[in-house]
């Protein structure tokens, strides 16, 4: 692999925005300086150079759901979206709840276009009862546990998991293992297909009240206080959920939160079309919730933008809204949606898409910057002003269930470099 010089770019990595050239050699950033030359030269004049993005929540469907997505196609979309690392969720078939399943993910990731970090289930088969062999899973590289897709319903089980995980740092170079929760109390949300409110009432659709999310966030904050454990709140969608997390952070508890691009840009009125591309869990909420999610991201209550990239086949999404599976594509459009919809400068976006999620996932030794000599070369080169129109058919995913079909957005990934390898160049994946 020859060297790559990136010239005339503007570096944004949380350490002060500046203009500099980069030289990448043998997978690492060899030099940051002026007038650098390499075997390949990328003129980044007018572009922003950032640490590669990190997605805390994706479903690449492999193993078990390969018709909707594979790790290869999902990671290609991620690379096209500027991501150099993703955390894949354990709701595969089989569930990632053993070291063998983790190894399988590593094997399947051999040709991936970004780092694929497996998370593992908190409970065996994600059924909310018996704990997975967490120590063994941490030894095999897992840093985040989650029963994603369903919250751990039993407070006693969640308490035990938090306590147990808090004693595993010695297996993770001192990193505090994080439990990520899909916050939803099933007793209130079961059977619901959309947010419970004026639209669900009008459309005659069973709803999931915001309180189903709020209650579990409140419970897990209490359990974080009780156990001293680390909780990460996945895809927060409610205004009062944001408020609860804000208060918990003020109190000094070890909690973090994320929001998705769709929860900061779409509301439940979209369901009036009955197009199940708008079915997602947690559901699209009210405009007031959308505003609160944006505010939470901007004021630091929510630490990260994570996509919850959830491909589904055409035939699955063409079932009636009530019966269709929830989920939306996200990796390839996340930056553009955030750049277009959030009133944030690029420094803030890099925090939300790269620096903070890398820290939460325990991979900040290699992702999330800073851009300096000696660090692994995981970078995204962005054009903040390029306008383009999202079309599902043009995305790398095997599926096309984007809720942003036809939407005009601003901001495009031009190049993505993962471990020194140019995996996306001029907006095209190289493999």
């Amino acid at each position, binding site marked *: 692999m020859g060297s790559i010089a990136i010239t005339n770019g503007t570096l944004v990595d949380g350490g002060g925005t500046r203009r500099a050239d980069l030289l990448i050699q043998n997978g690492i950033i060899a030099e940051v300086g002026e007038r650098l030359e390499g075997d390949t030269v990328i003129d980044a004049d007018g572009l922003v150079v950032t640490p590669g993005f990190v997605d805390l929540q994706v479903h690449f469907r492999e193993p078990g759901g390969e018709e909707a997505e594979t790790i290869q196609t999902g990671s290609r979309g991620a690379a096209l979206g500027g991501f150099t690392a993703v955390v894949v969720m354990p709701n595969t078939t089989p569930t990632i709840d053993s070291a063998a399943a983790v190894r399988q993910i590593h094997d399947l990731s051999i040709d991936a276009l970004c780092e694929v970090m497996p998370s593992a289930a908190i409970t065996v088969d994600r059924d909310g009862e018996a704990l997975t062999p967490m120590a063994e899973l941490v030894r095999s590289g897992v840093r985040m546990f989650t029963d994603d897709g369903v919250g751990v319903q039993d407070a006693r089980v969640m308490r035990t998991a938090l306590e147990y995980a808090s004693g595993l740092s010695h297996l993770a170079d001192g990193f505090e293992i994080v439990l990520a929760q899909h916050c939803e109390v099933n007793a209130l949300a079961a059977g619901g297909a959309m947010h419970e*409110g004026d639209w*669900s*009432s009008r459309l*005659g659709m069973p*709803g999931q009240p915001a309180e189903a999310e709020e209650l579990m966030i409140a419970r897990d904050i209490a359990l974080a206080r009780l156990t001293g454990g680390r909780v990460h709140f996945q895809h927060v969608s409610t205004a009062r959920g944001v408020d609860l997390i804000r208060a918990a952070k003020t109190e000094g508890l070890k909690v973090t939160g994320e929001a998705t691009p769709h929860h900061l840009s779409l509301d439940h009125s979209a369901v009036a079309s009955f197009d199940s591309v708008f079915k997602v869990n947690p559901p699209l909420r009210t405009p007031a919730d959308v505003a609160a999610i944006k505010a939470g991201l901007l004021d630091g209550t929510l630490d990260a933008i994570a996509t919850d990239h959830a491909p589904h086949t055409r035939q699955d999404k063409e*079932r*009636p809204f*009530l019966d269709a599976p929830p989920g939306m594509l996200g990796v390839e459009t996340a930056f553009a949606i955030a750049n277009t919809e959030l009133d944030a400068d690029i420094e803030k976006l890099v925090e939300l898409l790269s620096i903070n999620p890398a820290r939460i996932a325990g991979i900040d030794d290699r992702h999330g910057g800073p851009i300096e000599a000696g660090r692994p070369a995981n970078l995204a080169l962005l054009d903040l002003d390029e306008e383009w129109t999202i079309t599902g058919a043009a995305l790398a995913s095997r599926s096309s269930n984007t809720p942003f079909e036809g939407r005009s957005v601003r901001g495009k990934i031009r190049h993505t470099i993962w471990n020194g390898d140019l995996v996306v160049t001029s907006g095209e994946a190289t493999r």
Partner: protein
Amino acid sequence: MRRNGARHLLSMADLDRDDIEQILNLTGSFAEVGERSIPKVPALRGKTIAWLFYEDSTRTRLSFETAAKRLSADTMNFSVSSSSVNKGESLRDTIETIAAMGIDGVVVRHRAAGAPQQVADWTDAAVINAGDGWHQHPTQGLLDLYTATSHLGDLDGKHIAIVGDIKHSRVARSNAIGFATMGARVTLAGPPTLLPPSLDGWPVEVTHDLDAVIDELDICYLLRMQLERQKQAVVPTLREYHHECGLTSARADRLGAEALIMHPGPMNRGVEIAGEVADRPNAVITEQVANGVSVRMAVLFLLLGAGLQPVDESAVGGGLAVA
């Protein structure tokens, strides 16, 4: 009634007052056809209508079939076992299969709200919603309006209470819109557990106390109480429901002499309506069923028969030669 250029009937919200009046006028003409010795006209000869009933239905299905036959349409039944949804066949594959056989219209009933609207997105045939989940049942709404106007005339300022399980009722959603569009005052009456979570934007008033409005009603419209609601613990007992929310004999006595008692059927006598009350002269429940055929003839004729031009009564009369 238009969507994507084709003509459909998906929701009462698709119809303005003029649309409804046109349909009700035409219904009157077709009701006369029903009284003839041979109640059949060639209005839809050569047209093919498919029944796509994903949910069990007896009365609505028979009513549509009778309407189609009186209009001389060909009909075909796509047998949908409820399990085919569970087997995962996409709705789109199903409708494209049927459409490939050549159809002019499709009448859809589905347990999922919005399914007929999705079907309308995927076919050029006219789509008629015969009930989708808790969402809409527009031909029921129209036959109820026809029945009400045939007794009460203009509905402007008339007061209707829709009583019972509003939350899970497509009939209630269609009728709340339909009666309000025709100028009636609509009150929804039921316990909070049987009301939708939000009524923002609904043209209605709400009460939990039927007795507070019963004396002044022009129409007392009772909804079927699903017996499983008791198991789901949204009402304590059906006995209590009858006592608090049902049209008991005592409440029926308080209705004005001209006030109508209506019910979409099938009734649970002794639950939402006292057995004896259902047989009173001002209970027009079987009349609703009879009118269902005429209203569905009007809807089928308007969507499939006369092209896109509004049909005036004289033109219809001219086209209604006895077959």
